[in-house]
């Protein structure tokens, strides 16, 4: 019984054949699961970025404002729309409760997205493509992003950030 003290020399009781076989099969599967992660870093196209910097929220605020002023092409619902050229630094600022600016990107072009927040934690979720990253105050998270489909995408905040959390919606256009 599993509630009683086991036999004194339980270590010496051999495993059943079924148990032995299952352990071997399971180990092979566990090794595969482990190997997949480094392997995808080498040959896959979707990996969480390892590029990040510490930055004060004030400095990130200023960098975003400078970026918006440089590439602004219009406004939508009072939010600035920017069209940065490919391979440039792009800033996305999360704050209670908006994502700024609205981005106009080109399909199959690469951008260095700097993601951060200037108040509390926010979740950067691109829908409907379903990609999710965390925007943390004090941290500049650099995502080297290449949109591979075109259309209109929304940025949804998916980290609770206060009572207005569900109104925090941004936009990305990919042409």
């Amino acid at each position, binding site marked *: 019984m599993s509630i009683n003290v086991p036999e004194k020399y339980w270590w010496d009781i051999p495993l*059943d054949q*079924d148990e032995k076989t*299952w352990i071997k*099969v*399971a180990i092979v*599967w566990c090794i595969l*699961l482990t190997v*997949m992660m480094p392997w*995808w870093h080498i040959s*896959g*196209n*979707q*990996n*969480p*970025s390892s590029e990040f910097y510490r930055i004060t929220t004030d400095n990130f605020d200023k960098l975003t404002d400078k970026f918006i002023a440089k590439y602004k092409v219009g406004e939508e619902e009072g939010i600035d729309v920017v069209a940065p050229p490919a391979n440039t630094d792009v800033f996305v600022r999360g704050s209670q409760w908006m994502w700024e600016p609205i981005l106009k990107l080109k399909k199959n072009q*690469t951008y260095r997205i700097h993601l951060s927040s200037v108040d509390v934690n926010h979740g950067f979720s*691109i829908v409907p*493509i*379903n*990609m999710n990253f965390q925007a943390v105050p004090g941290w500049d998270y650099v*995502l*080297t*992003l*290449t*949109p*591979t*489909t075109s259309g209109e995408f929304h940025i949804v905040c998916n980290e609770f950030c206060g009572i207005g959390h569900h109104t925090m919606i941004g936009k990305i256009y990919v042409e």
Partner: protein
Amino acid sequence: MAEHNDEHRPRGTVVLIYIFLACFVIFTYLNWKQLSDVWTVG
């Protein structure tokens, strides 16, 4: 010992556990597949 009596071997569980492993493999594959369809990020 009774455990080595073939009548008492957990043969049903052996079948069930491989069904479980198959589900695990399929679910893992589907998720990697879904991941490979999203935008490139690094």
